[in-house]
């Protein structure tokens, strides 16, 4: 495989706060040190990890710091990370909107960027005029656009409106038109930032399909930034996780997403104890008469097989003597979609101030390979008398199903996303 893009030590520094009279004093200071005294840039050395949630010392931050990686030709690389992790800055540097502070990027072929669809659409001009306008902004020639005009209009599905000013379009139609133009560019490298957020389900599907065609069929390279994990998983062959301007993971899409979700959920708790984790994930507004103190899995690595029981240990504590307490749970996948759940039997009796350890085994779960979260609730009652919850902890633990059979040494077996989450057990009989 040939390298399509190479990032070497890319860093980008931003100054925080307002541009004001102090800026000019910094500028003068910098100019004096660099051009007269021949020293290094005095402001380039300072600057700390770019964590937006915490107050820092310096006025300068590294939006990106020492980014080094290569993208192979034909790869679809998903870039994920929290807001402010540096995803868009990375794309902006690659699409030459802004220059890096240090480092170089080398790329083969034409780069087209879709940081926002419909860039440069003029509201007064018709759809047709805007196709030419937008295409030209993206670097196409008039002849190229004219050749693809019909295809673009057809893909966007706005034929009826094509000679109407774009200001009369719905926002969805504008996005469709914008994406259609970009999708028919023929760059070797396509940079896409969160453009699928608008547009209806049908169009999103169409757009993802188009991007897949582009990478698979035509061997072009795509860099895709999104917070939509479903889209990233469907589309990307590789994933890159950014945090505070640094790469924390580069690998397969699934691993990258697992890594990211885990970071997002528990970024402050990686080294913190189980009690704090429960506290952080607890939903507010419940009486906490009886509450979870700690929740953990019997296996510290959290890896199970399909035919293996998944065992949780819950440490619960009570503020009041209560009887017939039960534990309910929901299991959801990494995109936060519930897969299933259970209602426990009201078998727990607990006295005031007492602590109890409860072991729950999830039997015959038939879950297929993937990563899951478990959310738990403590409560009492039943459907007839009415139910009450004392405590709810969302996404209390994460576990992974990594194989089908504990007794087989084959390890990983392929399981594709589109096959769902459950491995049914079947019997096949030939009747006569």
């Amino acid at each position, binding site marked *: 495989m040939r390298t399509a893009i190479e990032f070497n030590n890319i860093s980008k520094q931003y100054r925080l706060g307002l*541009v004001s009279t102090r800026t000019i004093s910094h500028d003068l200071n910098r100019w004096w040190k660099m051009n007269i005294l021949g020293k290094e840039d005095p402001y380039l050395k300072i600057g700390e990890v770019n964590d937006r949630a915490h107050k820092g010392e310096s006025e300068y931050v590294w939006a990106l710091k020492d980014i080094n990686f290569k993208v192979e030709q034909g790869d679809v690389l998903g870039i994920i990370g929290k807001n402010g992790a540096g995803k868009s800055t990375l794309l*902006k540097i690659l699409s030459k909107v802004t220059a890096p502070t240090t480092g170089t990027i080398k790329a*083969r072929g034409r*780069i087209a960027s879709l940081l926002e669809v419909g860039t*440069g659409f*003029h509201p007064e001009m018709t759809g047709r*005029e805007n196709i030419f306008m937008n295409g030209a902004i993206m670097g196409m020639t008039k002849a190229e656009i004219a050749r693809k005009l019909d295809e673009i209009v057809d893909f966007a599905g706005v034929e009826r409106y094509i000679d109407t000013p774009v200001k009369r379009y719905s926002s969805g139609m504008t996005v469709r038109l914008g994406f259609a133009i970009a999708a028919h560019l023929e760059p070797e490298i396509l940079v896409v930032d969160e453009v699928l957020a608008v547009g209806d389900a049908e169009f999103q599907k169409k757009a993802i399909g188009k991007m897949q065609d582009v990478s698979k069929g035509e061997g072009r390279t795509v860099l895709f930034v999104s917070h939509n994990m479903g889209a990233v998983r469907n589309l990307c062959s590789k994933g890159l996780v950014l945090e505070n301007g640094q790469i924390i993971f580069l690998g397969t899409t699934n691993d990258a997403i697992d890594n990211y979700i885990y970071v997002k959920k528990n970024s402050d708790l990686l080294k913190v104890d189980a009690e704090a984790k429960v506290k952080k994930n607890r939903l507010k507004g419940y009486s906490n008469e009886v509450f979870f103190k700690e929740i953990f899995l019997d296996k510290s690595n959290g890896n199970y097989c399909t035919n293996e029981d998944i065992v949780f240990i819950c440490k619960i504590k009570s503020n009041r003597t209560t009887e017939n307490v039960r534990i309910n749970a929901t299991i959801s996948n990494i995109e936060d979609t519930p897969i299933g759940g259970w209602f426990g039997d009201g078998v727990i009796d607990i006295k005031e101030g007492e602590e109890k350890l409860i072991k729950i085994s999830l039997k015959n779960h038939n879950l297929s390979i993937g990563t899951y979260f478990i959310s738990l609730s403590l409560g009492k009652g039943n459907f007839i008398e009415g139910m009450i919850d004392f405590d709810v902890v969302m996404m209390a633990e994460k576990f992974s199903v990594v194989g089908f059979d504990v007794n087989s040494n084959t390890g990983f077996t392929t399981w594709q996303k589109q096959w769902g989450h459950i491995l049914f057990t079947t019997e096949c009989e030939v009747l006569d």
Partner: protein
Amino acid sequence: MEFTTIIKPKNKLFEVDFKEIWQYRDLLSMFVKRDIVTQYKQTILGPTWFFVQPALTTVMYMVVFGGIAKISTDGLPQPLFYLAGIVLWQYFSDCLNKTSSTFTTNQHIFGKVYFPRLIVPLSTVTSNLVRMGIQFLLFVLVYVYFVVSGVSVIPNIYALLFPFLIVLLAGLSLGFGIIISSMTTKYRDLTILFTFVVQLWMYATPVIYPMSTITNPTLRTLMALNPLTSIFEAFKYGMLGVGEFSWWQLAYSTGFMLVLLGIGVVVFNKVQRSFMDTV
């Protein structure tokens, strides 16, 4: 295939990619078309406004400068004299005002997609050319009217310099404009000063008065330093047969324009790479 795109922190000072600008020539024509077509969309008079504006300005000048201030027009009919100045000045000031805000007004596009930024001021200068052409047509109509009604205005061979004069104006306004726009991305102070300067500049240029009314030698030297002076005088001399024409002056303006444009392109090229961070 070798690496075709290399992105690095700083470009060399004189590394201006003219080849790239040429590749984007279709974009230039799209921008020009957009500027012209959209300006008068949803108006009833449409492109007629191109005529109305200079006509009204001429009437206003006739009242204020000709009627009240009684400034000489070198014996020419006032409408003709003022219109000659207005057509040129309007072109220059339109170009200058628009190119000088290139970065600030286009930041939403510049922040999203890359294309050679110089395309935008170039398209401004070009699209204003069309507008100027229409206004020049008005000038010609008025000219013909006065010739037919027996006023003796005699054009001479220097009238053929007109296209060259326009190139000079375009170059000067582009040069000044992109320098100003580069300087105002970070500090906006200049923008405020600038609108004021353009207004004053008109009075320092023989737009509404002929050079012949300036008799003070110091003032004449100062006026000669203004690169616009010779352009306006040459236009009036060629078209209307009055004014002061000198090749030396015109050569000075040409040199000025080339140097200014050179500096402008270099500065603009440097600023365009990182202006998004400071704008």
